[in-house]
């Protein structure tokens, strides 16, 4: 169990975190600059919190009030950096064995070999670390972190440094490795698809605060705010019409909504301006603003017939039976 409850002042806002992570993968998703990496650095001991504490498997890593601050080297954490931070002067084999300086040579060799087998790195074990591809670098860094048998694993944007072609494949490989681990793991990412695929749970972070935690389905069913709605692609709107539901927040899916050039008189209807039209195979996703941001899936043929263009003012509506309330 990894338990974090702390605050830390950042230039633009305050990082204010309360998180408990069991032996599972938590995907922490948010825009760059939301405070995600700082959160990892506080857990790892590379940055001090202003107040609060972090504990791992019953041991206090940092507690500002009781003046406990375990140095990073004694925290028993694995940390995967965004650019993997492989030691350029060491081979793959020596990179992986770097953290095992306390054990004797025979044990070290056995554990490095086991890590190499775990991540399928046999072919490149003797290569210089500067000669690897992005995906290989990631797996070597992961092997190096795991070989010390950490009690928790922190991954900072593990896929951001990869090129587009190899990303999808490496994401699945990483998902497989993380699934085989039984320690609390935090994956920080700005990409919701990464979070959805890698995380058992997802925590959405916005300006230093975790605004919602749950499974991908839970987040998509009813996003906590517009930020999470934008991540999951769900519509979140406040009912402005008169009647019993006035002022309530409702959620609905883009494929349940419809678009028209003139008002239809539906109970849930908004006047919006089109800001983006994104092709999605047989349909297009129209993103429009007017109070809330609306995402409406329209059949590609219908969209062409209606002649929707960016800047057009249109009317988005949704049937009552497709609307979710909290």
């Amino acid at each position, binding site marked *: 169990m990894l338990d974090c409850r702390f605050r830390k002042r950042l230039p633009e806002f305050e990082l204010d975190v309360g998180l408990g992570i069991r032996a599972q993968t938590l995907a922490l998703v948010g825009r760059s600059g939301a405070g995600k990496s700082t959160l990892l650095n506080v857990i*790892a*001991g*590379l940055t001090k919190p202003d107040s609060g504490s972090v504990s791992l498997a019953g041991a206090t890593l940092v507690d500002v009030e009781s003046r406990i601050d375990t*140095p*990073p*080297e*004694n*925290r028993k*954490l*694995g*940390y995967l*950096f965004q*650019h993997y*931070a*492989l*030691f*350029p*002067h060491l081979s793959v084999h020596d990179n992986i064995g*770097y*953290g095992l*300086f*306390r054990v004797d040579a025979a044990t070290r060799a056995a554990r490095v070999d086991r890590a190499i087998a775990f991540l399928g790195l046999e072919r490149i074990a003797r290569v210089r670390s*500067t000669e690897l591809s992005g995906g290989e670098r990631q797996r070597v860094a992961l092997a*190096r*972190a795991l070989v*010390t048998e950490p009690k928790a694993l922190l991954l900072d944007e593990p896929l951001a440094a990869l090129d587009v072609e190899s990303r999808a494949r490496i994401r699945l490989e990483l998902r497989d490795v993380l699934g085989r681990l039984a320690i609390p793991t935090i994956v920080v990412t700005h990409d919701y698809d990464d979070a959805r695929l890698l995380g058992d749970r997802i925590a959405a972070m916005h300006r230093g605060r975790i605004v919602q935690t749950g499974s991908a389905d839970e987040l998509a069913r009813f996003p906590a705010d517009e930020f999470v709605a934008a991540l999951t692609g769900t519509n979140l709107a406040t009912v402005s019409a008169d009647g019993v539901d006035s002022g309530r927040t409702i959620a609905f899916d883009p494929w349940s909504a419809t678009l028209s050039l003139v008002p239809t008189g539906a109970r849930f209807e908004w006047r919006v301006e089109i800001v983006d039209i994104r092709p999605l195979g047989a349909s297009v996703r129209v993103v429009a603003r007017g109070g809330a941001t609306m995402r409406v899936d329209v059949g590609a043929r219908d969209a062409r017939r209606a002649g929707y263009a960016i800047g057009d003012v249109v009317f988005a509506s949704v049937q009552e039976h497709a609307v979710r309330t909290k």
Partner: protein
Amino acid sequence: MPRFESALGRIALGAIVALALAFLFLPLIAVFIAIPPAKAFADLSSPVAVTALGLSLRTTFEAVGVTILFGTPLAYWLARSRFRGKRLLEAAVQMPIVVPPAVAGVGLLLVFGRRGMLGPTLESLHLGVAFTTAAVVIAQAFVAGPFFVVAARQAFDAIDSDLVAVSRTLGASPLRTFIAVELPLAAGGILAGAALSWARALGEFGATMLFAGNLPGVTQTLPLAIYTALDSGLDVAVAMAALLLFSAFALLLLIRLLDWRMGRDTGAHRREETLDIARLPISQASS
């Protein structure tokens, strides 16, 4: 750069460039071609030259050794610490690079001389240095040290801070991280700095002359021996000058080689932050 379209402009530019290059290279070439190699070798085996060469080697090795011993921690501290007035301190550390050697000699006399600030105390401890071989080492370390500190500091600066952080998360203490990660990665720059400061120490003349004097066998290094030999005849002076020039050239090649190796070793990203030897005040490496 302006374009020289006309023939006259091109000729004028070409003439200026040729003149400048000739001015820079001719004196150096002249040292090598003035006397035949066989004669130069014979001149170098004269007792004055052999003694001066031996003294130069001994003192510069000691000066560079002391510089590395004290300069490496200083360079590391400058690269890693952050405090108010740091830029000012860094400028001060580099002062000996621009200070005229004669001024350095006077300053050293004022501190370590018999009547200097520390002189009487050192004398009473039988550690007086004025006009001894130790004074030569002190003068060389003073004028050459900053070259080392600047280069080593750049080398420590160029290390990706993630490498230091990841070493800590892998269980290594700050000291262990320094030895296993930072020192090996900065080794190229540290060696380049050592070579650079050695070249400067080898050529040291002014400060040594003022502070240590010109005593054959005690403080008369190669540059001072050249100066003295000029009185009795040009040939021995030229032979010793050729030797100094050759060693300076060899050191320059070594520095370039280390610089190239460092650029290769520091890895794929942040390559632009490796030691930039062109930014070092290498032009002042001989006085």
